[in-house]
């Protein structure tokens, strides 16, 4: 299955991209996606081991099972206001 990973602020700097499509085996979880991204050659190895994520715009634990077409956003510490 294919999921969209979105990056913002510092994490966008690490990824050098706003978004990356990732192909994962069926049944993969957020945790599997994090491992895959951090293992890459590029700056994403600098992602924290346990980053805050939102799946389809809701904060979600790393145990969340992913589905085809899900949008997984990596959320650095927020600083609105």
């Amino acid at each position, binding site marked *: 299955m294919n999921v969209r990973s979105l990056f913002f602020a510092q994490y966008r700097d690490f990824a050098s991209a706003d978004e990356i499509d990732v192909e994962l085996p069926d049944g993969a979880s957020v945790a599997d996606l994090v491992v895959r991204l951090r293992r890459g050659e590029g700056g994403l190895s600098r992602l924290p081991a346990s980053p805050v994520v939102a799946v389809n715009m809701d904060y979600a634990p790393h145990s969340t099972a992913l589905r085809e077409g899900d949008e997984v*956003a990596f959320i650095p510490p*927020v600083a*609105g206001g």
Partner: protein
Amino acid sequence: MPAAYAAVTAEPIDAARLLGDSLSPDDGAALLFWGVVRNQNEGRAVSHLEYHAYAEMAERTMHRIGEEAIARFGVGDVRVVHRVGRLDVGEASVAIAVASPHRAEAYEASRYVIEELKRRVPVWKREGYVDGESEWVPGFSAAAESDGRPT
């Protein structure tokens, strides 16, 4: 029926309009929280801020916070607008209008919305200093929300 409204915008925020739009004939007061860019942070002179957002999720989350405030405090409309892009010192980055039949609830609801916004809404800012450098402002880890929403 009181309603929540939320928006992320690159345009300057119109305070009078936000306040006016929040009011219904049931209300006896409206409060405006007006958050602005200040000229220093932790001893460094700031020239501007650059706000970034996960706009769609930020709007959803601000809308949800507004609905929570209405349910929790029994206020009227809650309207929240967050700016993105480059903002100079003195410009408003966030505005919250809370209309209410009575003032006490309006103050509580306004405080609730700004505190929750700072904890949960996916917005980031890069601080530009007078000396030409810039840095991401350290933020609040929304981790508490990732394993179960706060009550």
